[in-house]
């Protein structure tokens, strides 16, 4: 009897799983996402689930915050985003049940999500758009525009992009004439003070430091390398920026690290805590990051 019940349950499931899915009606909007997938929407999305903090920030920045009905656990900016339903972590296992229960008409995935996760959601009949990380500020503006089209906020976004460009131009105007560049070390994770992690070539950190009048001492190394303390000492950065400040790293704790006390940045008091979210989440706050970095490296120009 029991076994029959199990078989029965399985059978029902199989039959249902094989039944055809509803086909979408004529679509008003068609997009190609970062995985090369065709994504179609029947008009602007009204119920959006964001799977990454950067996506959440973009959605709120372009004025689509009210359409966000679910966000991943790490999405904590802006403040209003915290009030949106938490659909769990997107790092390992997606909580697909919660996502489906929100009945989203668009799930906005990002590069922290895997293609497998996209497939998983797609299999559940959801509309998923995979937003690739931009490589430049221009690419970030493009991302804003794509999300704007999907959510019906193109006009506000055009204004936003215009103002972002103006702010970048204002920084460029002050920094570009400078010929000298200051060496900067950006610490991502100094759990092992003899081998701290930093960001290198191809990252926004390197790009923005450069644009803000500095030079990342790891600019020639691809990705997110671990530098040896020897390399840091040899480069003798004029500034040390603490992207790991939120994990309790302070200018004082840096000064206490063996071997670090001889660095110019430590002696001159040029060790500064920094909000890493500004550079690690590729959204409009990258421009905030640029401004903050510029003020930090060249305070005299921003009196």
């Amino acid at each position, binding site marked *: 009897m029991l076994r029959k019940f199990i078989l029965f349950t*399985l059978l029902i499931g199989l039959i249902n799983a094989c039944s055809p899915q509803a086909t979408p009606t004529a679509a008003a909007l068609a997009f190609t996402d970062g995985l090369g997938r065709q994504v179609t929407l029947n008009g602007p999305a009204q119920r959006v689930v964001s799977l990454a903090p950067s996506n959440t920030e973009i959605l709120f920045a372009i004025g689509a915050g009210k359409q966000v009905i679910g966000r991943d656990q790490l999405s904590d900016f802006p403040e209003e985003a915290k009030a949106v339903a938490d659909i769990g972590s997107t790092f390992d*296992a997606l909580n697909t*049940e919660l996502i489906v229960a929100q009945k989203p008409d668009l799930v906005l995935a990002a590069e922290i999500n895997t293609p497998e996760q996209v*497939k998983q959601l797609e299999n559940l009949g959801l509309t998923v758009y995979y937003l690739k990380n931009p490589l430049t500020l221009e690419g970030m503006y493009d991302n804003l525009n794509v999300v704007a089209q999907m959510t019906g906020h193109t006009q506000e976004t055009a204004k936003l992009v215009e103002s972002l460009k103006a702010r970048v131009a204002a920084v460029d105007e002050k920094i570009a004439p400078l010929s000298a560049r200051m060496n900067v070390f950006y610490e991502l994770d100094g759990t092992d003070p003899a081998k701290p992690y930093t960001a290198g070539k191809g990252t926004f950190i390197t790009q923005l430091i450069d644009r803000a009048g500095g030079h990342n001492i790891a600019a020639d190394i691809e990705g997110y390398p671990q530098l040896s303390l020897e390399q840091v000492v040899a480069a003798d950065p004029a500034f040390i920026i603490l992207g790991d400040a939120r994990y309790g790293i302070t200018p004082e704790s840096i000064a206490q690290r063996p071997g670090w006390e001889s660095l110019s940045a430590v002696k001159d008091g040029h060790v500064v805590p920094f909000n890493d979210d500004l550079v690690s989440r590729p959204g409009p706050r990258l421009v905030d990051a640029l401004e903050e970095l510029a003020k930090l490296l060249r305070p005299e120009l921003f009196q």
Partner: protein
Amino acid sequence: MYRRAPFLSSLLLLLIALLLSLAIGSVFIPPAELWRVITGTSSSEVFRTIFLDIRLPRTILIAFVGAALAGSGAAYQGLFRNPLADPYLIGVAAGAGLGAIMAMSIHWPYNTLGLLAIPMAAFITGLLTVYIVYTIAHVGGSVPTTNLILAGVAVSSFAVALTSFLMFKSTNEVRRAIGWLLGGVSLVSWGATLALIPYLAIGLGTLILGGYALNLLQFGDDQATQMGLHVRRAKFIIIVAASLVTAAAVSFAGIIGFVGLIVPHIVRIWWGVDYRRLIPLSIIGGAVVLLFADVLARVVLAPQELPVGIVTALAGAPFFLWVLRRAKNQGSG
């Protein structure tokens, strides 16, 4: 009662575990609604999707994986006459992990083949590793178990070192790789679940039939030969079957520890050492334990889901110690 009717009581436990796994999730489905979903009369599209396309395939996949790991774990413990043997002893997991990480470092196109690249790579390298271990351990006309274990440990260490090296090198994929190595059921779909069936049917079927051979092997290779067993062939068949099953499970569910190690021991403590019963009971027990672990993984940190591999050890170890202690106290350990 459970001591006298092992199959009845283990199947009852399985039923409870299946029902729990189907009933409990992040989204609460009222029992009446659940019944309507099962009978196909529910009008809620959301509940139907959650139940039929998320919970049901996941539940079955988890049951399959647990069965595969515990079944092959029991077979390995018998084959190696080693209580510490688990399905990963001779390199399947280390090899599969290496294959998976290698596949992750390549950007596959977003299509069926690209999405299957990681499980396929894991499956192939898992089996390949076992083949290498077996070949190395092969001496003259026989395959001494000590050789197998030592070769397995050495080759596994090498594969793990290579895996760590690759993870260290490619910072971008580390998170995904760690998730995989901790055992997380990604890509849950009917496709993955159904794809496991042929491997499990053949592999676990073979292991169940190998129960008598395993009984004979407990007397040592020489004795078993004298009792008429073709020892080398029996070993070979059991290793192939167990590796096939484990590699298939690992490729879709990542490396889930502990189940393959403890379930056979619990079965042995409760229901004795006859491998003709031990193997099928471990298969059922593995499904039960992993289902319970998966339910816990879903609720402990809700809405976040834990990798099930963490839960199996976290909840499984104390449970196993409890069983062990109780058995000792009753003088039947």
